[in-house]
């Protein structure tokens, strides 16, 4: 089941620079998209979401962009901080996210001081 794909298993950036994490999806029924961050030995923590009626949502240092025609979304973190080092999961759902979330395989972000 590859409905949500994160093709980069890892990403390394310098502190203060922009981190860009990418996600692609194949199911055109998805209309709600989320990013979660996960530290070792913890559960996923919600970061930011976007519904399909928007193409951008911003919350502090985090911005999610949605390109529906390309079935692609990205998470931008600016500026990146060492505490952002974690695994980032993209997830998608239909109907505001109360339905089942389909997760990508995750991207491990390492922010170098």
């Amino acid at each position, binding site marked *: 089941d590859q409905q949500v794909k994160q093709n980069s298993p890892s990403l390394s950036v310098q502190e203060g620079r922009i981190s860009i994490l990418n996600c692609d999806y194949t199911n055109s029924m998805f209309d709600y998209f989320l990013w979660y961050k996960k530290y070792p030995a913890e559960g996923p923590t919600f970061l930011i979401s976007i519904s399909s009626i928007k193409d951008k949502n911003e919350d502090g240092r985090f911005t999610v962009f949605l390109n529906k025609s390309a079935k692609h979304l990205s998470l931008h973190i600016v500026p990146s901080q060492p505490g952002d080092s974690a695994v980032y999961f993209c*997830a998608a759902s239909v109907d505001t996210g*109360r339905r089942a979330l389909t997760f990508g395989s995750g991207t491990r972000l390492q922010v170098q001081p």
Partner: protein
Amino acid sequence: EPEVTQTPSHQVTQMGQEVILRCVPISNHLYFYWYRQILGQKVEFLVSFYNNEISEKSEIFDDQFSVERPDGSNFTLKIRSTKLEDSAMYFCASSGTSPLHFGNGTRLTVT
């Protein structure tokens, strides 16, 4: 900030045994979920629960699995006869109007 709490953090059991994983969702949330992550694989949806009944379940959630909200605070996942392939991290989650909040998981090891 309110949290979803899961117990135990680690459960070891023998194949064929029954296990019950416990969760206390955030108190004003009405939607409850179980997900699992097999080592090295994606987080996978198992089941959602609303208004005292299952609202959605995946193919993984077969007759060996059941969920229950036995009182006003707990939400449990029971696996009747565990198999080696049930070894995974099991995450409970809850939501209200907000996106899902996850607990820190129970690591289930079936030997």
